[in-house]
C-alpha cells in the first residue's frame, strides 16, 4: 500500500471531521464519530512512526499541493515528531472514547456536539504543529490549538472556569504574539519560513543571503550574529516558555487544569505542554542550532536555574494543595521542569532524557487526570478531605492512582524511574552535582504530595456521612485509566521503544542542528 499521503491525512482528518460533528448534532452520534476519528488518528500516527522508523533517512517529507519547499509548505516528520504524534493521538483517542461519560453533569447535553467539534479542532492544531516543517504553519496551528483549548476550558462546570479560560487567553495570546514577532524577525532576516531552509540561511553570511546587489555594512557577518536574530530567538523562546508553562510563566496552568471539564484536563495535560516542548526542541536544535543557542546565547544559564526552580517550587506548592486537580496541575509544572532541564544540558543524554520523559509523563499525567475523572463520576468533591477512605470504596480506581503516583515519584519499574535515571545520569555525565541532587530532592517532594493522596484514600476513615459501599467508576472509564497507567508500568520495564527511539531522535536533533 502507498502510505505517502499519511502526513496530510493526520491533520486534515480531524479538521474535516470537526464540522461534521456540528452536523450530527445528537450527542451520542457526535461522540461516536469523534471517537472513531480519534482512533483513526492514532492508527495513522502509529503507522506513520513505523514508516519513519523504517525509512533510510529516518524522516519523511510531504510537499503540500506538490509545491516544492521552500516555496510551498512542507510537512516534515522525523522520529521525534512521530513519537510526539503517537502520544498526542493516543491520549486524544482515549480521552474521546470516554468523554461522553465524563461530560455527563459537566456540560449540558445539547452542547456536546459543539464540544466534540472544538475538541477535534484542538487535535488538528496539535497534530499540525508537530507535522509541519514550516515555521509560520507552526504559528497557525498553535493558534488553532490555543483558541480551541480556551473554549474547551471555559466549558468547565463552574464559573471559575471562565476566569481561568480568560487568564489563559490573555497569557496565551501574549505568548502567540511573541512567537509571531520572533517568526517575523527571522523571516525578515532570511526570507524563508521553511525550517530546514531557515537553519541553513541562519549560518550563512549576510552577503550571500541578500545577494550582490544589496548595500550592506558588513556583508561577511553571519546572519545569526545579527541583533535581529538574537531578538527573534529571544521572542520565540519566551513565547514558547509561556505556552509551555515554564516557571515563572506557569500561572495560567493550575487554574486552567483545575476548572476545565475533567476530560479536557485529561487531554490537555498530556498534550498541549508536550507539543510546546516539541516546538521548543525544534526551534533550539533544528533551526537555531546547538552552537548558537548554548555557546553564543548561553541559554543554559537561563533554562537550568528556571527548570530546577520549577521542580522544587512547584512540587512544594503541590504538597500544599487540598484540591486533587490543582495538586496534579502543580505537579505538571514541576514535571515540565524536568523536561526543560534535560533540554538545557544540551547533550545527547540530556535531550534523550527530555524526550523520554515527554512520552512517559504525558501518559502518566493524563492517566492520573482520568482517575480524577473516575472519582468525579461517583462524588462531587475532589479534595483530599472528600476522598478519605476511597481506597475501600473504589479499589481499582485508587490502585490506578497509586501506580501513576509511584510513576511521578520515580519508583523503579515505573516509566518515571526510567526518565529520572536518564536525567540524573545526564546531569552526572558533566559533573552537574548540584542539579543531580536537586532533581532527587524534587522526587522527595513528589513523595510528599503523592503520599498525601494515598494516605487520605487508604489510611483515613471517611466521615460518618460517607457510605462504605463499593462503588467503582464505570468500566469503560476504569479501563481507559488503566490503559494509560498500565503503560506507565509497561514502559518502566520495556524501554526499547521509548529510550531507543528517543536516542535516535536526539541524534537527529543534535546532529542536524549543530
Amino acid at each position, binding site marked *: 500500500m502507498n502510505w505517502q499521503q499519511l502526513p496530510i491525512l493526520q491533520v486534515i482528518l480531524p479538521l474535516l471531521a470537526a464540522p461534521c460533528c456540528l452536523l450530527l448534532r445528537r450527542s451520542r452520534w457526535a461522540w461516536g464519530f469523534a471517537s472513531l476519528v480519534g482512533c483513526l488518528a492514532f492508527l495513522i500516527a502509529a503507522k506513520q512512526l513505523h514508516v519513519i522508523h523504517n525509512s533510510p533517512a529516518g524522516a519523511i517529507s510531504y510537499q503540500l499541493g506538490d509545491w516544492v519547499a521552500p516555496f510551498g509548505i512542507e510537512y516534515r516528520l522525523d522520529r521525534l515528531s512521530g513519537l510526539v504524534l503517537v502520544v498526542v493521538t493516543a491520549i486524544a483517542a482515549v480521552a474521546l472514547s470516554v468523554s461522553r461519560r465524563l461530560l455527563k453533569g459537566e456540560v449540558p447535553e445539547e452542547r456536546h456536539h459543539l464540544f466534540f467539534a472544538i475538541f477535534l479542532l484542538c487535535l488538528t492544531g496539535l497534530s499540525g504543529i508537530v507535522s509541519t516543517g514550516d515555521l509560520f504553519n507552526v504559528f497557525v496551528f498553535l493558534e488553532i490549538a490555543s483558541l480551541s483549548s480556551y473554549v474547551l476550558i471555559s466549558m468547565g462546570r463552574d464559573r471559575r472556569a471562565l476566569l481561568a479560560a480568560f487568564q489563559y487567553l490573555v497569557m496565551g495570546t501574549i505568548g502567540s504574539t511573541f512567537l509571531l514577532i520572533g517568526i517575523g524577525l527571522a523571516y525578515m532576516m532570511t526570507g524563508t519560513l521553511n525550517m530546514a531552509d531557515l537553519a541553513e540561511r541562519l549560518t550563512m553570511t549576510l552577503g550571500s543571503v541578500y545577494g550582490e546587489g544589496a548595500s550592506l555594512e558588513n556583508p561577511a557577518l553571519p546572519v545569526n550574529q545579527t541583533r535581529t536574530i538574537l531578538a527573534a530567538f529571544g521572542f520565540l523562546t519566551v513565547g514558547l516558555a509561556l505556552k509551555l508553562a515554564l516557571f515563572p510563566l506557569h500561572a495560567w496552568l493550575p487554574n486552567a487544569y483545575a476548572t476545565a471539564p475533567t476530560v479536557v484536563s485529561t487531554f490537555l495535560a498530556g498534550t498541549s505542554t508536550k507539543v510546546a516542548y516539541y516546538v521548543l526542541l525544534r526551534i533550539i536544535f533544528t533551526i537555531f542550532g546547538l552552537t548558537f543557542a548554548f555557546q553564543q546565547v548561553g541559554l543554559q544559564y537561563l533554562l537550568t536555574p528556571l527548570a530546577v526552580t520549577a521542580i522544587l517550587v512547584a512540587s512544594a506548592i503541590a504538597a500544599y494543595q487540598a484540591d486533587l486537580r490543582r495538586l496534579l496541575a502543580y505537579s505538571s509544572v514541576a514535571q515540565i521542569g524536568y523536561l526543560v532541564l534535560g533540554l538545557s544540558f544540551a547533550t545527547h543524554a540530556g535531550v534523550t532524557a527530555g524526550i523520554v520523559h515527554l512520552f512517559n509523563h504525558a501518559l502518566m499525567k493524563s492517566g492520573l487526570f482520568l482517575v480524577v475523572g473516575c472519582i468525579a463520576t461517583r462524588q462531587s468533591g475532589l479534595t483530599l478531605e472528600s476522598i478519605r477512605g476511597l481506597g475501600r470504596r473504589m479499589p481499582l480506581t485508587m490502585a490506578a492512582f497509586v501506580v501513576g503516583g509511584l510513576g511521578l515519584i520515580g519508583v523503579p519499574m515505573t516509566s518515571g524511574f526510567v526518565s529520572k*535515571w536518564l536525567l540524573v545520569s545526564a546531569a552526572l555525565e558533566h559533573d552537574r552535582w548540584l542539579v543531580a541532587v536537586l532533581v532527587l530532592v524534587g522526587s522527595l517532594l513528589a513523595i510528599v504530595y503523592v503520599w498525601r493522596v494515598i494516605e487520605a484514600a487508604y489510611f483515613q476513615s471517611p466521615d460518618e456521612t460517607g457510605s462504605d459501599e463499593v462503588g467503582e467508576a464505570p468500566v469503560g472509564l476504569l479501563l481507559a485509566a488503566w490503559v494509560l497507567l498500565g503503560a506507565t508500568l509497561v514502559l518502566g520495564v520495556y524501554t526499547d521503544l521509548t529510550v531507543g527511539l528517543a536516542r535516535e531522535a536526539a541524534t537527529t536533533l543534535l546532529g542536524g542542528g549543530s
Partner: protein
Amino acid sequence: MSPQSLVLAAVVMPLVTAVLVAACGRRPNLRETVTLVSGGLLLGVVCLLVGSVDARPEVNVIDVIPGSFDRPAISIGFHVEPLGVLFALVASGLWIVTSVYAIGYMRGHGEQNQTRFFACFAVAIAAVMGIAFSRNLLTLFLFYEVLTLSTYPLVTHHGTEAAKRAGRTYLGILMGTSVVGLLLAILWTWQLAGTLEFRVGGILDGHVEPVTAGVLLALFAFGTGKAALMPLHRWLPAAMVAPTPVSALLHAVAVVKAGVFTILKVGVYIFGTDLLSSSGASVWLMYVAGASLLTASLIALTRDNLKERLAYSTISQLAYIVLGVALATRSGVIGSGMHIVMHAFGKITLFFCAGAILIAAHKTRVSELDGLGRRMPWTFAAFSVGALSVIGLPPVGGSWSKWFLALGTVEAGQWPLLGALMISSLLNIAYLVPIPLRAFFRDAPPGVGGDEETGGEAPVACVVPLCLTASGCVVLFFCADPIYQFLLSVTVN
C-alpha cells in the same frame, strides 16, 4: 530444576502467595494454609540453591535501560552467591516460624485487616528474596523500594493517629534517604565504573580517588536508611507501633537486615575489601558505626518500653555489622555476615517473647514484668537465651560473630574500636539481663498476683516459635562452622 529457575521461583513464589492470600481473604484457615505451605516451599527452594552456590549461576530477566554506544544495558537480574544465600536462608526460615507466630498472635489479639497483613507480609518476603539474590545495584534498589512500600501498611496496621505518624516517619526516612542517597550513589557508581554488577573484588577499583571513594561510601551508608546508622535511626523505634510479628520479622530480620546486607554487599562486591582498606575510605565509617553502637546501647538502657528497648538494641547491633564491613578485613566481613544470622535468631526470639508477654499478660513495660517468670517460664527462658545471643556469650550463636568482629578490629589495628565493642557488650548485659532477672526473681507486685493462677503462657502458636528460635540460637553455637566456611569463600578471591 535449574538454579536459574529456582532463583526466579524464590522471588516469584511469595508474590503468588500474596495474590492467593488476598483471594482467600474470606476463609482464614485456607489463607493461613497458603502462607504456611508456600513458606515451606520457599525454604525448600532456597535450600536447593545452597548446593549451586559454587557455580554462581546468573539469570537476566529484562533490560531496563537499553545499552547505548558506550555503555552496556542495565538489567534486572539475579545471581546466587554465598552472602545472598545466607540472607535468604535466614529470612525464609524465619518467615515460616513468624507465620506460625503471627497466626497465633493476630487471632489471639483479634486484629483487623488480617488478609492485608498476610498479603503484605508475603510481598515483603518476595522483596527480601529479590534483595538477597540481586545481581546488580539496580535490582537491589528496586526490591529495596518494594520492601519499603510493602511494609508501610504493616507499620500503620492499627490505623491510629500514632500509627499514621509513625508510618510517615518510616516512609519519609526510608524513602527519602534511598531516593537522595542510595540512588545518587548508584548513579555515581554507574558514571565511574560503567557497570552496576556485583563482582568479587569490587568494580570500583582503579576508577576512584580515595576521597571520592569515601564520599561515595558515605552516600551508600547513609542512603541505606534501613541500616539505621545513627542519626538516621529514628524510623526504627517509630515503627514499633506495628503488631509484634511485624516488629519481629521485619525489624529484626527482613528490613533492617536488608539494610546492612546492602552495605555488606556494596562493601564486598562494589568497593571490594582491598580498595576499602588500602584507600582508607572507610575509616570514618568505622568510627561512625562505633559511636552509633555505643550511643544506641546507652539509649536502650533508658527505655522502659520493652519493644522500644529492643529497637535501640537492634540499632546498636546493626552498627556492629556496618563496623565489620568498614573494617574491611577478612574477619570483619565474616563477622558481619555471621552477625546477620546470629542477631536475626537472637532478636526475633526477643521480639516473640515481647509479643507473648503482651498477649498473655498485657504488659509492655520492663518495670511491669516483676514475677512474670513463674507464670511464663518458657517465654522467659527463651528470652534469656535470646539475650545471651545478642550479648554474645557462649553457649549461644552470637558469641561467634562478636568474636570475629573483635578479631577484625585487631586485624585492622583499630584498638579504640575493640574497646568500644567490649564496652558495648557490657552495656548489652546491663539492658537485657535485668529483664529475665526481674521476671524470675522478683515477686509480683501485690494486687496483680491474681493473674498467676488464672493466666499462663501465651497461646501455643506463640510459644512454640519462640522456643524454636531460642534453640536455634544454641544450635548455631555448635554449628557455626558451615557458616564460617560459606563466608570464607566470599573473602577469598
